[in-house]
């Protein structure tokens, strides 16, 4: 390669990387203050929704009563109420969900805590959680397809949900 061309290739490569850096620098600055916040938001008791990982469904998590079987069991074998799922560790943060059972059906899944190890994980959580939730509500089961690009979040979400359903005695 001639030196002139090598110089241009180097310059162009540097420019491409600089553009990439510029596009990504926003994530870097927002990741810095956030690292403290995400540490505090680990597995809490039901009802205290984690600020950094709130998904669209977690707004409903204020009116829950913890693991209370208040009404008679319905056809599914589960009593109405809100059940805590187990806390699942993933490499992108911990995940915990609650299952809301009403009339023997899964009426809502509330995300208590979703993957939030970094800004990217938060973004994926926000994208994936509503999709999994609607799949679960449609299927009335924790056995739904993985959502690619959010494998860890999906699988941990479903694992936590399954434990909540088991606690409820929900058999579908």
């Amino acid at each position, binding site marked *: 390669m001639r030196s002139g061309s090598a110089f241009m290739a180097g310059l162009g490569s540097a420019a491409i990387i600089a553009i*990439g850096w510029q596009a990504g620098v926003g*994530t870097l600055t927002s990741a810095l203050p956030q690292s403290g916040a995400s540490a505090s938001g680990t597995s809490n008791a039901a009802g205290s929704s984690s600020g950094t990982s709130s998904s669209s469904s977690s707004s409903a998590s204020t009116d829950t009563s913890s693991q209370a079987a208040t009404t008679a069991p319905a056809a599914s074998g589960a009593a109405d109420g809100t059940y805590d799922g187990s806390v699942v560790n993933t490499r992108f943060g911990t995940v915990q969900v609650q299952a809301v059972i009403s009339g023997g059906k899964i009426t809502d899944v509330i995300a208590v805590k979703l993957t939030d190890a970094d800004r990217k994980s938060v973004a994926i959580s926000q994208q994936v959680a509503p999709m999994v939730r609607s799949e679960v509500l449609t299927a009335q089961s924790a056995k739904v397809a993985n959502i690619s690009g959010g494998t*860890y979040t999906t699988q941990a979400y479903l694992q936590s949900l399954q434990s909540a359903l088991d606690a409820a005695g929900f058999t579908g």
Partner: protein
Amino acid sequence: MTSTAPYRTPQPARRGSATSERATAIKRGYKARLRRGDLLETIVYFSVAIVLALFLADGGATYFINIKDVATGVGIVTGLVGSDLLLIMLILAARIPAIDRTFGHDKALALHRKLGKPVLYLILAHMLLLMIGYGIAQGLNPVAEAVDMIVNQQDMSIAFIAMGLLILVVVTSLVIVRRKLSYEFWYIVHLLSYGAILLALPHQFTQGMMFAEGTWARWYWMALYVGALASITICRVIVPIASSLRHDLRVSEVVIEAPGVVSVTMRGRELDALRAQGGQFFQWRFWAPGFFWQSHPYSLSAHPDGRSLRITVRDLGKGSARLLKIKPGTRVSFEGPYGLFTQEARTTNKAVFVGAGIGITPIRALLEASDLAPHEATVILRGSDNTDVYLWQETYDLCVEKSASLRVLVGHRPRGVNTWLSAEAYGKGESLLTLAPKIKESDLYICGPTPWTELVIRDAQRLGLKDHQIHAERFDF
């Protein structure tokens, strides 16, 4: 010496054109080739820069804020760059005409081989660093993390299989190059690399967050894979099959040139369209019993005349020996033409051709194809005895026709001296410069056994010839 010329159509030399005009044309062609080469190399650098940019744009820099994430960050980068270079290796081996005409088949493959080990190391680092990095995040040791990935994570089990295949391919390739295992074995092992690439593909989209659905990066990455795999499928499978069917090549004549050396002439339709040149080679497959399952690279031994192609082959491997038994009418399929050991590679208006043994045959075809003014070319032939100077009569006639000087060095090399010359010539004090006085301002074409070729190149470099003036054809895959 038995030397028959079943057909020969001399390339009409453009004697009318002025020397300076031709020199300008050669220089212009050379400059254009340099520009193409620089452009292609720039694309390689850019492709690496683009994956790094995609990583940064995706917030990749955040991995380097906390020490516990650094292994993950570096692991992702090595995976990205390793995959990018793996695709470049694939493209280099695809025998894409633009690359072949710019760098030559042998140089592209040399770079392909050179990249093999670094790519393996990058991808190994990717695996190990992510086992460590994700292990830290999940509170597992690296081995337990690997087990967790294989058991629990989508597409990770096949990604580990792909890693195993990649190690197998690179390690056996290195062993094969060193021990010279058979071409067929090497070929089968190389097919596994496609398996490795395909098995490693799903985890990049399902595990890698960079290429999540709905991102630009996903489309770019997909396009890269589709492009690389398509180029190799088109150039190495579809085009050769289509070309073989179209030209319907069949053996027309098999002639014994010397003990153990045969010329095979093949005729076919519309051979002009191949645009093959003297000095190029094809990958040949003869559809005869016990033959069709292997293909061999042989250079043309005559410049194509549009109606037929000729190769001259010495009894090198098992396949070559049986060529004698091939009957006229046998169907021949081929891949090619390949190689930049041609007139197109010229950088000056003078040329020196040096050939040894069976390496004389592409030299003869190249000489026939070359546009040379009188007294601008020197041909140096080397054989261990008289019967070893193949196609002697034809080459002699061509030299007369083109007014090229011809030097023949016969006899064994001197003992204890590392030289490419015969003992006789060495004793007389001959050298590249005495044999070809104009060599410093000439293009030097060399074809012969690799160690011998290296010695000629060494002498040429000592005389001050630049790399772009030296064109060597090596008989290896």
